[in-house]
């Protein structure tokens, strides 16, 4: 079997930003007509490798070779001239300009100083056809779906007839149908001889489209495999290294603590029809149900966030369980959702300011915020939660998704909550960050916090739940013990099962 | 022997004091001195100082400084005057607010302070000397009404107003309106605001002429931008000197250098001067009065000097018309 010589070879690359060694041994090869995946957790060095390839930064050591020739890029224009094109995760499209204008931005065909619109439009149409897209090239980009905008961006990248085309997280905002279209387009490009590098944290997508896989970890390239010679689990193992494969991290036989929260007959039609359950100190109660079953509505109703609810909520106090209004429950509950930006992480603010914000009373003296206390608190939580920051003053907006989520957690933890509600807390995070968050939940439970966890990923729930709360059609159908099998859990979603009813 | 020397000494002191009483030093602080108007003021002041001073038995010595349009420079200039112990301070303020500090300093030193042409915003000076813009309009309007009567014309006028935030503009409109109401020879068809913007003088005049083709006269709140009005009149072929059938009757204010040749040519019919000579004359009167410890008898807005009405007939012979002689 003759393998074409690599169009791109990156060997022995090193790059440090100040004292942080972003890449210590970066290697990557790409061949014409092949799709090479580049995988790695956040901080593994993928972005730095791409910045080196794109000419945005230059390497401290190592070599980049294009079709066998060593190259060095003084800037992005050199990289473009060498035949390298990017399709970034953040699309660079100009809404008020037409599709054709977007595709040819920076390289308009002209005739006597004027833009040759006829040529521009026909060429844009041809480029889009290469991708199997039939977008009207004369219409403004405003109003196009994300998938279509991406097609426009890819068409622009293709305009320069690149040898190497790099996709950075191309599917994170696409619907299933759009994803399929994109992959078809990539296969077409492959057939046309373009070398494609595909960066994604959706491993199933990677196996759908890629021929080879390069894995980076902690700044080094740790492996290159043929996709046909490995599988998802294998790749995950390479990415996470010694962190360990996915597996259950709470003991099956944990003894629950006393009841911290008792909910009886919580009702708020049509959102919540009937919910009753107990939540114990030190336990993680995994809320399991189909999309639309009412899990988020349940916890939001519990906290009184969506209007009045009927029913009784009892909180464990100095005299045992006593009924409380939702307001009191909110005072001792931390609520972390998947919507980091919307639910109170202020991106322009520093990490310590974000952490301090809901806890200003405790951090103030005589109405004045004590900077020393704020810093102390921030440092403690950064350590406890292993948040990767250069310091407490780093802007939250510059952190990776996982670290942002940890800052949100830290915010709430500073108030020492009794109850922690996590609603899809790992959505959008890479594997290592998901792992971190789950382990944190387990640690907190170990310290006595009562945890409610909602997740659509059953494997995740199964890793950490002491018990399962089954939610079906806006009711609580019952509970299942921690040792329930996957089959039992899936079955619980459809038919009535023999469930343990709370006392 | 001792006795005679003491007597001689006492006499000398008395004589000296007597001489001092007729010999005053006036500190004059200009905010800037780059324009013909400012040069005219100073020359007129010096001339009047000699004339009025001789009549009053007073010799005036001037100490003059210029501040280059810088309020803090002016403040320190006035400080110098106070230190030198001048008898009276006269200042044309660069900044109406900043001058207040200098006034207070002079008060503390017991030196009378006269603001000239520009009033103080906050602290009241001992006296203010300036032009009477209200009277300017009254005299022009009256003379113009007389002219219309003489010519047997019913004056249908367009009034071009200055910026309504400027007290001079308000005063002039007030004066004109008063005479307009009292005299049947003139009536105002329309009031046009110009915000002192020459472009609005032109377009406002042009619009008013279109809306009122029967208009035959205009009252212009200042002729600093008279060429703008000229443009508008040329457009409708009504820029012509008196005597020509197309002549459009013009009453203006200030008679600034640009307007002088136009009046000499008969295009402008009546104006009341922004009178540098009269201002200086009044200033010297006030200064002499203050130096003698007398009350200059100013009105509520200060000692305002009235301008003089000028017409094509009188412009050749009128004396001390700064806009004619100073370039």
């Amino acid at each position, binding site marked *: 079997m003759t393998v074409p010589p690599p169009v791109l070879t990156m060997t022995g690359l090193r790059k440090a930003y100040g004292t942080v060694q972003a890449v210590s041994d970066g290697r990557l090869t790409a061949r014409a007509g092949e799709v090479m995946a580049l995988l790695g957790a956040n901080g593994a060095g993928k972005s730095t490798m791409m910045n080196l390839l794109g000419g945005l930064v230059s390497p401290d050591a190592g070599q980049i070779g294009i079709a066998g020739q060593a190259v060095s890029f003084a800037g992005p224009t050199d990289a473009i001239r060498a035949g390298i094109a990017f399709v970034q995760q953040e699309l660079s499209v100009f809404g008020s300009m037409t599709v054709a204008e977007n595709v040819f*931005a920076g390289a308009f065909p*002209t005739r006597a100083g004027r833009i040759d619109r006829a040529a521009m439009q026909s060429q844009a149409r041809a480029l889009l056809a290469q991708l199997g897209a039939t977008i009207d090239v004369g219409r403004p980009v405003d109003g196009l779906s994300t998938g279509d905008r991406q097609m426009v961006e890819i068409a622009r990248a293709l305009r320069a007839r690149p040898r190497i085309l790099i996709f950075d997280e191309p599917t994170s905002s696409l619907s299933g149908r759009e994803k399929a279209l994109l992959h078809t387009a990539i296969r077409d490009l492959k057939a046309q001889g373009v070398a494609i590098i595909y960066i994604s944290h959706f491993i199933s997508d990677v196996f759908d489209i890629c021929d080879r896989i390069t894995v980076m970890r902690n700044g080094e390239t740790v492996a290159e495999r043929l996709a046909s010679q490995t599988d998802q689990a294998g790749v995950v193992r390479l990415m996470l290294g010694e962190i360990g494969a996915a597996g259950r991290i709470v003991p099956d036989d944990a003894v629950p603590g006393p009841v911290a929260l008792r909910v009886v007959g919580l009702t708020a039609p049509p959102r919540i029809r009937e919910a009753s359950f107990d939540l114990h100190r030190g336990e993680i109660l995994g809320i399991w149900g189909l999309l639309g079953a009412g899990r988020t509505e349940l916890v939001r109703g519990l906290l009184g966030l969506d209007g009045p609810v009927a029913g009784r909520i009892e909180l464990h106090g100095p005299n045992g369980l006593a009924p409380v209004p939702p307001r009191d429950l909110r005072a001792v509950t931390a609520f972390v959702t998947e919507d980091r930006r919307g639910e109170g992480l202020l991106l322009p603010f520093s990490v310590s300011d974000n952490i301090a914000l809901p806890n200003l009373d405790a951090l103030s003296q005589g109405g004045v915020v004590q900077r020393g206390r704020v810093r102390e608190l921030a440092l403690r939580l950064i350590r406890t939660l292993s948040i990767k920051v250069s310091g407490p003053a780093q802007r939250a907006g510059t952190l990776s998704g996982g670290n942002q989520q940890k800052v949100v957690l830290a915010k709430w933890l500073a108030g020492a909550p009794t109850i922690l509600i996590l609603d899809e807390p790992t959505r959008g995070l890479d594997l290592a960050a998901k792992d971190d968050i789950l382990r944190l939940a387990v640690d907190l439970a170990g310290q006595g916090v009562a945890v409610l966890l909602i997740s659509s990923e059953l494997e995740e729930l199964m890793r950490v739940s002491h018990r399962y709360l089954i939610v079906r059609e806006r009711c609580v159908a019952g509970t299942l013990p921690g040792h329930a099998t996957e089959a039992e859990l899936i079955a619980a979603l459809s038919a009535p099962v023999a469930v343990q009813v709370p006392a | 022997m001792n006795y005679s020397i003491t007597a001689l000494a006492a006499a000398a002191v008395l004589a000296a004091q007597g001489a001092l009483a007729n010999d005053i030093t006036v500190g004059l602080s200009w905010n800037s001195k780059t324009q013909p108007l400012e040069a005219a003021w100073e020359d007129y002041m010096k001339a009047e100082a000699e004339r009025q001073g001789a009549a009053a038995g007073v010799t005036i010595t001037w100490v003059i400084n210029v501040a280059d349009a810088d309020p803090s420079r002016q403040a320190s200039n006035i400080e110098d005057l106070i230190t030198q112990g001048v008898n009276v301070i006269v200042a044309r303020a660069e900044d109406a607010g900043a001058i207040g500090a200098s006034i207070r300093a002079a008060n503390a030193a017991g030196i009378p302070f006269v603001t000239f042409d520009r009033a103080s915003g906050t602290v009241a000076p001992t006296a203010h000397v300036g032009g009477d813009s209200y009277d300017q309009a009254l005299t022009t309007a009256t003379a113009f009404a007389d002219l219309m009567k003489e010519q047997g014309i019913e004056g249908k006028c367009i009034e071009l107003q200055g910026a309504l935030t400027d007290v001079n503009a308000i005063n002039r409109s007030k004066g004109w309106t008063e005479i307009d109401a009292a005299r049947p020879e003139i009536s105002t068809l329309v009031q046009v605001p110009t915000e002192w913007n*020459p472009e609005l003088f032109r377009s406002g005049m042009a619009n008013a002429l279109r809306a009122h083709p029967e208009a035959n006269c205009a009252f212009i709140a200042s002729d600093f931008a008279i060429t703008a009005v000229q443009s508008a009149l040329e457009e409708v072929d009504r820029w012509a000197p008196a005597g020509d059938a197309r002549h459009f009757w013009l009453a203006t204010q200030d008679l600034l250098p640009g307007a002088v040749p136009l009046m000499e040519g008969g295009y402008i019919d009546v104006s009341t001067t922004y009178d540098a000579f009269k201002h200086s004359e009044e200033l010297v009167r006030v200064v002499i009065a203050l130096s003698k410890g007398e009350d200059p008898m100013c009105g509520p807005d200060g000692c305002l000097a009235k301008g003089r009405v000028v017409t094509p007939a009188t412009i050749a012979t009128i004396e001390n018309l700064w806009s004619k002689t100073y370039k």
Partner: protein
Amino acid sequence: MMRGVLNYGFPLILAGLVVLFGVLSPSFLGLANAMGILHAMVPIVVVATGMALVVMLGKLDISVGAIGFAGMSMAAMLIDGAGWSPLAASAAALGVGAALGALNGFVVVVLRVNPLIATLGTMIAFRGLALQITDSRVMVLPDAMRNFGNWTIGPVFFDVLLAGAILLAVHLVHRETPFGRTITAIGNDEAAARRIGLPVGRTVFACFVISGVLGALGGVLGAAQVGAVTTFLGKGMEFTAVAVVVVGGISLFGGRGSVFWGVLLGALTFEIIRAGLNHVGANPYFYQLIGGGIIFVAMYAAALKARETRLQD
């Protein structure tokens, strides 16, 4: 492309105004008045054309009035003191405009100062410079220049044709040249434009130079119309230019709107209101109130339409 006229409610209001003023003062509807309105609009149209480009970038240049004044002051000094011909002196004024515009461009692009702050500073500096040069005097211009400023070819004023040609030219450059499209791209998303390698710095710099030249030209044409240079020349013109651009439908965020229709509609609005109020003899104290009220209604109509457009996104 009627896409340039972003909203229909707004021109309708304008048309309604014309009818209203016409009813109250019949001479308003005459040809002479129409020509007069266009003539009075010339300085602001020229300045707003330059401003439109800068606003398309998503930036502002509030020094244009001061540039107009400085350029024309220089020209007046050359005519008066050095005996230059008005034509040569006007060309010198344009040169001054280009130089001052280049200075603005330098501060914004190279020194990376926020454009609003940068041009606020240069506005003060340029005006101060001009006042120094002229000693705040009124400088009467030669008759030849004033005659040129008001020269008519048939019923049409020459400077209206000139301003119209400039507006059209800039509009076409904006719509049909790579330079113009780059401006729009930068206005849409400057970071994205940089990412794909568009010459952002050069384009921004060029727009400030153009704005400077057109600011100076506006000053020249304005002074030519009135036959004199006074300290009022250009005062507040930058804010009027921004208002014209905004009222005409060019978004201050950049990247959207039509240069031609935006400047034309915006300038027409202001001039029609002023001329109309002149014609009906409105009380001078109410000009600002009435003018402001009409602008408010027009802008509200525009905002309603814009909201509709954005909802489609």
